[in-house]
């Protein structure tokens, strides 16, 4: 079993390294370009084949050529070697190539370290529960590879090596918990993030064209989740305000670019506090509940009552806000603003304008006009669908008089055009409407599929009033949700569509779990840290206190672990245990047994040093020798002798 110091890599360790590298690389296949995954797979297969046939690894120059080819491919695909995607691709290629260069233990150590590093890069893409579950699996495999590498074949079979790796991982869990809870959290990036750091985030856009919201609705992703201080208000009050669009060029709706005076909101009901957890949407919007009365510190409302801040939101964040559901807003609007909200592109949609102007002369006041418009949408001819027909050069005319099939943005746009033509200031508001209450944890979950567009009209003496024309054509949209309002063939995400009760319960559970994960694990930040420590009796702990607590916690854990390492199970047989007990009694009377002393010699010495015990100890020594070496080792005699010795010493 002796072997020379093998700095060269042992053959049996290589499969472990393959498995570990694969575990570290595999999840990246989900978002990498396909050619990269194929190339990495080929490299894996090549090195595995070489291992199988005991072939020679490629030399330095072929490897250099492969590295250059990989870099060139990445440069061609991403136009850079840096940044998130290109950097990860580079790491994957280098890991796969390093497998072709595994000659010594040091090479193998590099592979494992690269693997640990690759584990981190997964979290740039996903930090959900599956990613969290993959972590221990991959970690165990990488650690097992290290154990096999340094332990050689003596480390045992796969089960033993994996067991040892799992033991190490489990023993390091307490350290992780202590560090995770106590490590001082720094908020915000330390320096600028690469351009693609937060690519692929969805959310409301700043403009609205026919179809833009319908696209978003087909996405079942979470937009934000809300926990109200009290009960969740009725659905038809839940309008989450996004960009307000005032400019219309005949096709696209845009927000007004200039500054506007601060809005004046008169709350007519008690403020309702809530905590919202926003998914990163790369925008500055808070998506506050109408009408906001209190906002988080770095947010402010603009002239159109949309709550915004300066920096775009690129990570999941929690905010506290409050809203008044019954409110009056800008009863005295500036004439400039009113004029802006009456403008229509000249020469477009003549039919719609003519219709609205006919209402203007015939009806008594703006309320009548609004009623007529809603009645028009409520008539049978109009349908609510995610797949409206294409509209031509005069989109509102086409929609109102020809196709009559549309999604919320069609109805909101047509309604606003009609109102403006009838002389009522009106504008489009985009945002989210409703949400789904999760009975498991009491959170209200708002998805991209809850994206919505509605209208606001300004009435003298009342201010801006919300009118949702969609509720005229499909009241279920506002009362129950988009799934109920659409017919069965519509391309909605399956998640939104599910109706089976048990499935829905399962989904609620899963989402509640996800939410808890997001709130407490992913969302564990400076504030949560302070809250948690406050609950344990350290309300105002600063970084010095945290560092001290951290050191103390880790030190205690290390001591416990060291205690475990030093502990040796006492494995004395009963005979030995009794003999030791007798020796302890002697030691208390001042006679120590030297390591080389036989029982008989010791007994002789006891006679000189402690004559009072001599007779009893002689009996013990005789019983011990008999029990230990005699043909019929009788413990009872020894036990009795030792007991006699103890009682004698005490008297």
């Amino acid at each position: 079993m002796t072997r020379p110091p093998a700095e060269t890599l042992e053959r049996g360790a290589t499969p472990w390294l393959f498995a570990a590298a694969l575990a570290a690389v595999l999840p990246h296949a989900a978002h990498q370009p396909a050619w990269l995954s194929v190339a990495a797979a080929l490299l894996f297969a090549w090195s595995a084949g070489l291992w199988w046939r005991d072939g020679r690894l490629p030399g330095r120059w072929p490897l250099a050529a492969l590295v250059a080819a990989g870099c060139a491919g990445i440069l061609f695909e991403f136009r850079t070697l840096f940044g998130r995607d290109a950097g990860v691709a580079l790491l994957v290629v280098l890991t796969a190539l390093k497998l072709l260069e595994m000659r010594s233990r040091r090479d193998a150590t590099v592979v494992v370290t690269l693997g640990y590093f690759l584990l981190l890069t997964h979290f740039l893409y996903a930090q959900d529960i599956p990613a969290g579950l993959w972590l221990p699996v991959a970690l165990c495999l990488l650690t097992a590879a290290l154990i096999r590498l340094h332990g050689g074949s003596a480390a045992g079979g796969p089960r033993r090596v994996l067991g040892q790796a799992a033991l190490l991982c489990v023993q390091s869990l307490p350290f992780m918990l202590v560090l995770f809870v106590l490590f001082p959290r720094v908020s915000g990036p330390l320096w600028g993030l690469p351009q693609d750091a937060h690519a692929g985030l969805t959310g409301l856009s700043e403009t609205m064209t026919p179809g833009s919201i319908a696209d978003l609705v087909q996405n079942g992703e979470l937009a934000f989740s809300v926990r109200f201080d009290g009960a969740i208000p009725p659905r038809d009050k839940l309008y989450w305000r996004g960009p307000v669009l005032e400019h219309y060029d005949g096709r696209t709706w845009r927000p007004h670019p200039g500054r506007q005076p601060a809005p004046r909101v008169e709350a007519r009901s008690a403020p309702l506090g809530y905590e919202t957890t926003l998914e990163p949407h790369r925008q500055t919007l808070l998506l506050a509940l109408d009408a906001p009365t209190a906002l988080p510190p770095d947010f402010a409302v603009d002239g159109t009552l949309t709550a915004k801040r300066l920096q775009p939101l690129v990570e999941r964040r929690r905010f506290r806000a409050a809203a008044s559901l019954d409110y009056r807003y800008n009863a005295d609007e500036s004439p400039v603003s009113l004029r802006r909200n009456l403008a229509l592109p000249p020469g477009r949609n003549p039919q719609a304008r003519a219709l609205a102007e006919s209402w203007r002369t015939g009806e008594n006041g703006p309320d009548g006009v609004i009623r007529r418009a809603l009645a028009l949408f409520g008539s049978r001819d109009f349908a609510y669908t995610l797949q409206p027909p294409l509209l031509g050069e005069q989109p509102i005319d086409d929609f109102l008089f020809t196709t009559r099939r549309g999604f919320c943005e069609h109805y909101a746009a047509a309604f606003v055009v009609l109102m403006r033509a009838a002389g009522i200031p009106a504008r489009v508001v985009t945002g989210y409407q409703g949400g789904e209450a999760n009975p498991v944890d009491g959170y209200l979950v708002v998805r991209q599929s809850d994206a919505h567009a509605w209208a606001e009209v300004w009435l003298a003496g009342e201010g801006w009033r919300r009118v949702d024309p969609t509720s005229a054509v499909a009241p279920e949209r506002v009362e129950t949700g988009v799934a109920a309002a659409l017919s069965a063939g519509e391309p909605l995400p399956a998640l939104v569509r599910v109706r089976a009760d048990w499935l829905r319960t399962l989904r609620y559970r899963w989402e509640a779990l996800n939410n808890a994960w997001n709130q407490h694990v992913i969302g564990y930040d400076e504030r949560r840290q302070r809250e948690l420590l406050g609950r344990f009796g350290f309300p105002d702990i600063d970084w010095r206190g945290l560092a001290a607590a951290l050191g103390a916690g880790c030190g205690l854990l290390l001591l416990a672990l060291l205690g475990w390492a030093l502990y040796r199970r006492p494995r004395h047989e009963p005979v030995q245990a009794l003999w030791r007990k007798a020796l302890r009694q002697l030691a208390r009377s001042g006679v120590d047994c030297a390591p080389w002393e036989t029982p008989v010699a010791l007994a002789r010495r006891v006679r000189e040093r402690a004559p009072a015990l001599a007779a009893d100890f002689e009996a013990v020594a005789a019983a011990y020798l008999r029990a230990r070496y005699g043909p019929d080792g009788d413990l009872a005699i020894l036990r009795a002798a030792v007991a006699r010795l103890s009682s004698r010493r005490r008297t």
Partner: protein
Amino acid sequence: MRLAARLAQSLFRWRSDGTAPFRLGQRRIFMLPTRGGLLYAAALLVMLIGAINYNLALGHALVFLLAGLGLTGMVHTFRNLHGLEIAPGRVEPVFAGETAQFELLLSSDRPAPRCGLRLAALGGDTVETAVDGGAGRKIAVPLPGRRRGWLELPRVRLSTVYPLGLFTAWSYLQPAMRCLVYPAPHPIPLPAPAPAATGGTAGGAGGDEDFAGFRARQPGDSPRHVAWKAAARETGDRPLLIKQFAGGSDGELRLDWASTAEFGDTESRISVLAGWVVAADEAGLRHALNLPGQSVAAGLGPAHRRRCLETLALWSP
């Protein structure tokens, strides 16, 4: 230099471990991170900065778990040595230029195996071994025997990086062991045998190959000279016969210091004598060794060979 040595002495408390078995306690186990461990720490630092910069909660968790893993690995590395029992074993003499093998017996009373144990004597190569749970294992620590005489086993470094290779734990063992190094035998033809003082068979002028008859085998005779064919013919209860050759098989070879004067300095002459002892033993010739102040009476066989070589190894003018 002296200061460094004294510092090391006070730090590591080198002392002889004697000839009794001893157990590694925590006081004599030392630890430092390896290069792999430093790489690991650097990678963790970069990962931590990355996790903070991208605000990755799971990234934090991973970095902290890996940091914990490093600490746990450190304790396991320590535990891999702690409580190991070491007992000195046998040492066979070697010729100068060969490698002496100092046998150590490692035993463990822990149920888990101890893997990746490396032993290296100061100036010798490294050997690696493992001890199964609750078992013992013999391991030979190699050390080149360069000069004749006693080769004391110097400090032996017992080290391990198992399980993670991030830390190396080591301990210095100094069991009192020594190996006798014989002088390197110089291959030179044997000198002519001296006329037998006791008479015996006349030597004659014939070569070594001339067959001269049989005699009964005595302990110490080389098996090469047994008359196997004759033995095969016999029924087996007769003693084995030894083939005797003309040319002094009964003549006593006197390997004399004085007769090596032509070979140069003291060490070369001793080498020549050692070569003669080996050759004479292989040829089955009785031989005596004469050194100034010391001599070995004529004889043959392993014990005689050992005595001769020992005398040569330890002789000093």
